[in-house]
């Protein structure tokens, strides 16, 4: 029985990623409504949206190729795969050994590559515009993300996510400049990667400001549901990755099934707080002009690089 625990935990985690992601998205939206003094449709609204979309027919453009039809599944799959390897409710995940942090970044890159292709596939103006912008942001965000993850892996002496989180979780509370800087850089790239304000506005459908929404404008029905769901999971995964890397205390080190409920609770608390932070940032900031985005991400890259340098300079 005990041998099966890791598998069970893995299954729990995948289920959690699948079904808690809309909840997180709903929580963010609800919080945002409250901070802006509106009445929210409730935290469960994303589930209703998804159910509605799944039950609708798909409308496809005549010239849509296989890329367009294939992308939602690939996107969904790659994001779910990413969700399976990040230590969210336990450090001891069997699938975690299959991919390290660099592979994780690559997984997201594949998804993004295909969604950008799909955006251009039908040949509408907005899709192409969204794709080009998305790739610009991606090309700037990727180095910063990699730099951040390198800093953390230098700190943990490994690129394996589980090992990293285990190493950091075993330390007492500490303050190290490289981790502080990596955390700041991570937050900045998180905003860019998950398409939040100030880089992108997830609720807008205004032509000139759309980035992510522009690419998926042609999707409908089941496809749209998958893409939206993947987007919610991405937000969930990124926030829990940040939590796992920078405040891993509370994630169980062993493979005891009994720890899981508590771990889920702690995780939920942390995520709720992070989401509150994101909402505050989104409410307080205005979306920047697209030409300011390189500066924003350049700052993230600089901070991540300085974090890495200060690991060598100050902590050796």
């Amino acid at each position, binding site marked *: 029985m005990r041998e099966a625990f890791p598998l069970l935990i893995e299954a729990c985690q995948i289920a959690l990623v699948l079904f808690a992601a809309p909840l997180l998205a709903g929580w963010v939206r609800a919080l945002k409504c409250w901070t802006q003094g509106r009445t929210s449709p409730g935290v469960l609204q994303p589930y209703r949206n998804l159910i509605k979309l799944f039950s609708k027919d798909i409308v496809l453009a005549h010239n849509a190729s296989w890329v367009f039809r294939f992308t939602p599944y690939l996107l969904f799959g790659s994001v779910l795969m990413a969700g399976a390897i990040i230590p969210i409710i336990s450090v001891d995940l069997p699938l975690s050994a299959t991919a390290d942090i660099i592979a994780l970044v690559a997984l997201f890159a594949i998804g993004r590559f295909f969604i950008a292709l799909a955006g251009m596939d039908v040949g509408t103006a907005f899709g192409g515009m969204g794709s080009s912008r998305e790739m610009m942001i991606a090309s700037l965000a990727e180095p910063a993300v990699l730099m951040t993850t390198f800093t953390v892996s230098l700190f943990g002496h490994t690129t394996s996510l589980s090992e990293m989180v285990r190493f950091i979780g075993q330390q007492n509370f*500490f*303050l*190290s*400049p*490289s981790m*502080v*800087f990596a955390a700041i850089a991570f937050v900045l790239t998180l905003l860019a990667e998950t398409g939040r304000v100030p880089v992108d506005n997830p609720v807008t459908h205004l032509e000139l400001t759309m980035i992510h929404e522009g690419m998926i404008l042609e999707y409908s029905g089941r496809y749209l549901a998958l893409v939206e769901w993947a987007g919610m999971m991405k937000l969930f995964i990124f926030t829990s990755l940040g939590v796992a890397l920078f405040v891993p205390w509370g994630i169980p080190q062993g493979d005891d099934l009994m720890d899981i409920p508590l771990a889920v609770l702690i995780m939920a608390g942390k995520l709720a707080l992070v989401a509150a932070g994101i909402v505050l940032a989104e409410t307080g900031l205005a979306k920047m002009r697209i030409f300011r985005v390189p500066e924003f991400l*350049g700052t993230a890259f*600089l*901070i991540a*690089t*300085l*974090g890495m*340098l*200060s690991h*060598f*300079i*100050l*902590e*050796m």
Partner: protein
Amino acid sequence: MTFTAQIINVLAACILLTSFGLLVQRRIYGLLRIFAWQGLFLSASTALVAYTAGMNHLYISAALTLTLKVVVLPYILYVLVNRLNIYRDVEPLVNIPATMLIGIVLVIFSYHLTAPIRELSTLVTRTTLAVALSTVLLGFLMMITRKKAVTQIIGFLALENGLFFAATSATYGMPLVIELGVALDILIAAFIFGIFIFQIRTTFDSLDLKEMEKLKEHEGA
């Protein structure tokens, strides 16, 4: 590492970050704000070192930094900028990424340069000396890349910040007499800078140092 040592390290990293911020910030108000932050980090870390090492004269140095670098000098510069009506100036910076890369190279260079000291020293702050030297060199870089008088002054003062930081991190500060003398010199220098800015303004009608390239070698003036 003790917790205070960790905080000192984080402050050192913040000083480094502000140096880079100075390098790439275009707006004058932004520069002044970053400069004041740098002074604040410097002062805080000096005070912390004073606390950990039990060196009382460092408190004076920290207080000196706080008054000079966080309050007095930014204020003087602020008044100057307002008086001269140049707060709207945005400096065209060519090639920020290249500047940043050079900056990063300078940081690595100073890390290597200070390696022998790190090995010999036993102080808590020995690792921050590399940051101090980088701050000096980055200030230097800022003075080279900037073409406006006010920004060059800020670069100069940031360079001085680096020196203060170096004194603290290498030796827990120079003897008090020296620190006071140095602070006095900096204050005088800042006033002279102020006078200068007015002189440049009245003789050139601009604070752009690009105007000041008459004394080239070939013309022989």
